[in-house]
């Protein structure tokens, strides 16, 4: 593969600590994400990976530390604000409207970009209709991109899990995000589905230049598709670097394989 152009730091996480009562979920975590890169966060169960994503997109408020996005520094991120700034995410346990069709689910991803008001939309009057057509067209490109044409009108709840994951990704993509946070996009998938999903992640990164931050358990996948990897263990950062560096990091090896203490 030819080298893609990785830009400056777009997302900078500084000294984040998060605790729930007496449980210290994250301790003094710092790392950065550069524009156009695929950045992975890995670690054993309970290492604090999802908590880290939740801090970035404002679900949790860390007690200490700051997060900078495109030069603006925040001590706490507001979910709505995060979304409008161009950060989208998918969820480990899927967050879709199961009774709605694939198209409708993807259209919800366009919500922030719809300008016409509720009344105009309800009546489908002139500008509202034109706007909807425009958004619908964008959604169609996502459907084409994710190869889910056969399921346009299927209720999401009826789709197999692997496809639901794809729709979840599509909903995030519909926001045209600059940074995409993926929480275990390949969890519970078989080998073929994992390959498909890896290809989509790489294509998103490549074709749209979207910066991807992903949490993943499957080390093979992480090592194959990431540019840089952060390793967490018990809420602490124990490694950071290219897949090669991380693979040879003794602390990482001991966290994953265990050593005699």
């Amino acid at each position: 593969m030819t080298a893609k152009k990785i830009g400056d730091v777009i997302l900078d996480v500084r000294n984040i600590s998060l605790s729930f009562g007496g449980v210290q979920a994250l301790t003094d975590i710092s790392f950065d994400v550069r524009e156009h890169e695929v950045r992975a966060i890995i670690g054993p169960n309970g290492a604090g990976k999802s908590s880290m994503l939740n801090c970035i997109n404002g679900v949790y408020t860390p007690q200490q530390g700051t997060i900078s996005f495109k030069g603006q520094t925040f001590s706490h991120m507001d979910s709505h604000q995060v979304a409008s700034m161009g950060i989208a995410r998918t969820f480990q346990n899927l967050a879709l409207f199961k009774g709605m069709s694939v198209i409708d689910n993807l259209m919800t991803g366009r919500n922030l970009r719809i300008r016409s008001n509720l009344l105009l939309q309800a009546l489908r009057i002139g500008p509202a209709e034109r706007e909807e057509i425009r958004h619908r067209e964008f959604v169609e490109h996502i459907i084409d991109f994710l190869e889910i044409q056969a399921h346009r009108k299927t209720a999401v709840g009826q789709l197999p899990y692997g496809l639901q994951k794809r729709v979840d990704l599509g909903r995030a993509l519909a926001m045209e995000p600059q940074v995409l946070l993926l929480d275990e996009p390949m969890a519970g998938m078989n080998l073929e589905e994992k390959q498909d999903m890896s290809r989509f992640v790489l294509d998103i990164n490549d074709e749209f230049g979207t910066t991807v931050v992903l949490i993943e358990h499957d080390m093979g996948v992480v090592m194959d598709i990431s540019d840089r990897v952060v390793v967490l263990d018990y809420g602490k950062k124990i490694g950071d670097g290219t897949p090669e560096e991380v693979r040879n990091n003794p602390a990482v090896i001991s966290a994953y394989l265990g050593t005699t203490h």
Partner: protein
Amino acid sequence: MQTTFPKLLLQHAAERPDAAAMREKEYGIWQTLSWSALAAMVEALACGLHQAGLRRNEHMVVVGANRPRLYATMLAAQSLGAVPIPLYQDAAAAECVFPINNADVRFAFAEDQEQVDKLLEIRERCPQLEHIYFDDPRGLRKYDAIGLASIDELLAAGKAFAALHDGFARAEIAQGQPGDEAAMFFTSGTTGNPKGVVHTHNSLLNRAQAGARFDGLTHAEEVLAYMPPAWIGQNIFSYAQWLACGYVVNCPESAATVNIDLKEIGPTYYFAPPRVFEGLLTSVMIRMEDASAIKRKIFHACMAVAQRVGPARMNGQPVGLVDRLLYRLGDWIVYGPLRNNLGMSRVRVAYTAGEAIGPDLFTFYRSIGVNLKQLYGSTETAVFVCLQPDSEARADTVGVPIEGVEIKVADNGEILVRSPGLLKAYYKDPEATAEVLSADGWYRTSDAGFLDAQGHLKIIDRVKDVGRIAGGANDGAMFAPKYVENKLKFFPFIKEVVAYGDGRDRVCVMVNIDVEAVGNWAERRNLPYAGYTDLAQKPEVYQLIQDCVEKVNADLSRDQLLAGSQVSRFLVLHKELDADDGELTRTNKVRRGFIAEKYQPLVEALYAGKTAQYIETAVKFEDGRSGQVSATLKISDAKTFVPVKAAA
């Protein structure tokens, strides 16, 4: 009418410039390409290809699904007097090497990244392959292989060339003659290398037009093109007849959306191998079983009427008033909506070919008012040899010889055909050509069969496969493996069958279950299973298959010729037979000899009377990796019946 494909294109573009030639569903909307736009595209592509060096009589490979630009590329190559070779888009890379080298191909059109990867993979072995043009650029941005370019670049180059050389493409098209080679199709071939079947413009168009006249096709037909363009059946229906008649070819959005697209388009002329009709019916039946009791009752009551009245009605036979009214009612509440659901509301003529079709399946479609018919033909005959007239469709014959065709049966039972649609030759293989094509123009089909009293052709099996039972109770009896296999395959639970018996003392079969139908059956019975292999080996499934085998035996026992072909032992295979593993041809026909070698321990165990056998098999996955599956397979006996003499 003697002409060529590109000349027909120009004719349509001149006569009906704004009429739709093709439609393709993109971004959820059907996009129309008019005849004039298509002609302009073809002219530009022809200029581009000429500039890149494609010359008269040279071959060009096209590989991909049915797409407007793939068709345009074939037309562009033909405009220059070059010969397009469509290859199967699901063929493994290694399978493309022989055709490309055999025809010294320098130019290729590839639909997308998957096809480009394949061609690049074999490039070392095909050094002459200079130019690869791709249609869909997705994922190809970073490719920098020499000679790889998008079809858009080719179009742009062609337009620039055309601006300097006015009328170049039209002059090239004018030079084309009906007797020129128009296309080459590689036959899947059950043994050895594939053979390139060379057809001229005239042979393809003559048959296309004869078929169109037989069914009164016009430019108003709508066709959905979803089978591989490398299959001559698809090529005739959506390319040769498309240009001969000037109707509209619709390209589905993707392989997965075919059923949805079918409903949206509502084709009037439809062509599919039996397995597609079977798949459609199975999906309907499975959904019907899930419907409420009242709906099921109504459905079955109406279907009973349809089965009794429908076929006679379709065949134009008189039907009593009560039956007519009952059928009308059934049509209103069941058959009409069902046809609509299948996407067949507007079908005027539907054909099935390539394999024998089960009588139940065949009758089902005719009884709900779909004019399903059979035809007989092959790559070498440009498809149309025998067709069934609208009112004489039957499940067990393949129709009457149509205009231009002569048929006779050789002493060994082989069917010989003489027709203007016969192949010109096998490419670079005069020996093979001489073997099938006699000096006085008769083509040996290698099918055994006969013309019945009504002049309909009936096919029994391949000539070389028809064998004899040796030893045992049925010593010397005729054994037609395909005939037996087909009878079994007509059961929805059975997907593939391989029958052995030639030179043996009895007939034994290996069965592939249809995982969808059997899986559904198992779910209904609360029968848990872990996967294909596990399901296949369930004792309940064995019993199910045994019932099927015994029904076939009972049926065969009434057949005077083939009573000795009854199946005495069977086993259910642990993996699906697959073309990627070489077990099926690309057109999904079983390769009996290859399978016998590969599964030799199983065949031996069948005949040795064992009740179980351990087997290890290598499998190839779609991405080219390979693995192993192993299992211990049970072997069961089936009841055979004493032959009954048919009542005189």
